[in-house]
């Protein structure tokens, strides 16, 4: 059967037969890098278009419909515009930090791609602490934002960066705790283990109320972590014009923009992996006929379908809610989300020990 892992194996066999093992490894790494960059570009184009369509339909508009059939080439045109634009560096800016910041944002996003399983047996690096790796690396994101805000020599940028620092640091706690609930249930930090544990049903169905609460907390926390509305205080265009990327233009701005969408994709992919079974098809206990029917749908379609559903959820949040204030944002985390997810983690642990889940 055609599948992504099949193609990967074919390539690997061919390379191993043609070159020695060292060269095979080098070529495979280059291929993986190219694939990740290609995926980035494709995701950027698709997600921007999707966001604009979702926004338009919610706002009783038509959305992009001029460039290409049904406006499908709109984001390509936008990219072209951004490439052609001049990338200004302000006079008073710290030139090195200012120019490096957007690349750090991209590098973080790239690193996060590593442990994500896109399809059955199709994963860049199935390291044994996959989930921990994701939580650790994603917090480097805040450094690029702080660098951008500080080096711009602009008060708006600085305020956006400081807001974003406070926000990401606090929301990481509840995001981490809700990830922990699944780790407790699975007993492993490895992504492939977590996915295989959902072979007889996704955690969101097996785990009763605690997993639901963890899922909701996770979605709220990652929305805040990726600086998306209603938690887009780092940008807050009605207050801080554009927050930390006020001074950026051209391709450097585009990199921040792209990194935001890539991060949204990654956190949704992780949410789909942990709670909705990743590439695992929808299975119910011992209903074999149903399970077999579900297995016919390729695993990559399952993965991308689930991820895009979660992405839609995050976009839906953005176009519905007003923005929070900075103190309310921190209140929400420290007074509501953190206590709830801590108690929830206790509940889940009890549930896992007593074996109450399916």
């Amino acid at each position, binding site marked *: 059967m055609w599948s992504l892992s099949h193609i990967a194996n074919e390539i690997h066999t061919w390379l191993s037969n043609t070159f020695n093992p060292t060269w095979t490894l080098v070529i495979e790494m280059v291929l993986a890098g190219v694939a990740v960059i290609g995926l980035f570009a494709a995701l950027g184009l698709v997600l921007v278009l999707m966001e604009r369509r979702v926004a338009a*339909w*919610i*706002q*009783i*508009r*038509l959305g992009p419909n001029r460039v290409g059939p049904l406006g499908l080439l709109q984001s390509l045109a936008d990219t072209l515009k951004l490439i052609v634009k001049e990338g200004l560096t302000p006079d008073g800016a710290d030139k090195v930090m200012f120019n490096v910041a957007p690349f750090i944002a991209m590098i973080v996003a790239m690193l996060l791609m590593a442990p994500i399983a896109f399809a059955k047996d199709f994963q860049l690096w199935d390291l044994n602490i996959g989930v921990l790796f994701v939580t650790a690396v994603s917090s480097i994101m805040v450094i690029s934002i702080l660098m951008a805000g500080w080096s711009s020599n602009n008060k708006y940028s600085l305020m956006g960066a400081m807001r974003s620092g406070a926000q990401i640091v606090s929301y990481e706690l509840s995001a981490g705790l809700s990830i922990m609930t699944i780790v407790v249930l699975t007993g492993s930090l490895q992504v492939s283990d977590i996915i295989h544990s959902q072979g007889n049903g996704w955690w969101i169905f097996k785990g009763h109320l605690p997993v639901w609460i963890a899922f909701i907390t996770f979605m709220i926390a990652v929305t805040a972590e990726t600086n998306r509305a209603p938690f887009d205080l780092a940008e807050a265009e009605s207050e801080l014009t554009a927050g930390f990327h006020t001074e950026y233009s051209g391709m450097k701005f585009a990199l921040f923009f792209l990194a935001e969408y890539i991060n949204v994709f990654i956190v949704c992919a992780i949410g789909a992996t942990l709670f909705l079974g990743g590439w695992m098809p929808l299975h119910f206990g011992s209903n074999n006929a149903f399970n077999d029917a579900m297995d016919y749908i390729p695993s990559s379609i399952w993965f991308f379908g689930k991820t895009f559903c979660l992405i839609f959820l995050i976009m*839906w949040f953005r176009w*519905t*809610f007003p923005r929070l204030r900075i103190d309310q944002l921190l209140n929400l985390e420290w007074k509501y989300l953190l206590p*709830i997810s801590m108690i929830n983690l206790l509940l889940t642990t009890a549930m896992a020990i007593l074996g109450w889940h399916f």
Partner: protein
Amino acid sequence: MFLTDYIKDVTGAVKSLATGMKRTLYYFTHHKEIITQEYPDNRDTLVLPERFKGEVVMPHDEKNEHRCTGCTACELACPNGTIKVITKFDISPEGKKKKAIDKLVYHLELCTMCNLCVEACPSDAIKMAQTFEHSVYDRKQLTKILNHPGSKIMEGVE
């Protein structure tokens, strides 16, 4: 009690957010509510109301005759100096001198479409047209002469 209040707070908040999301989901799925008009494409079917104030025009009949007597009421009524009436003296067949307009110069770039000139005109010589695509590449094209070349005043209009 503290705990019940806390839980009530949380459920109330979630409920209020869910109502908003339900409303936006309704619009996301109901595309017939979309009110966008695709303007340059719908130019053929676009109907403006007959009172729409687009620009001042002077209607001429098929004999190239207008109703303007050159009384300058519109020029006086205009708050912006948009209209300039240049008069001349026609010699009628009987040899009498008669005042008539030579040119009625209209500066579209100064006009605010306030309709005061049309109201002021005693002989209904000018009216508002329903055009609105006025942009041109040269400012000079916005200065218009409203009476057609060779036109003369209609019989019986004083």
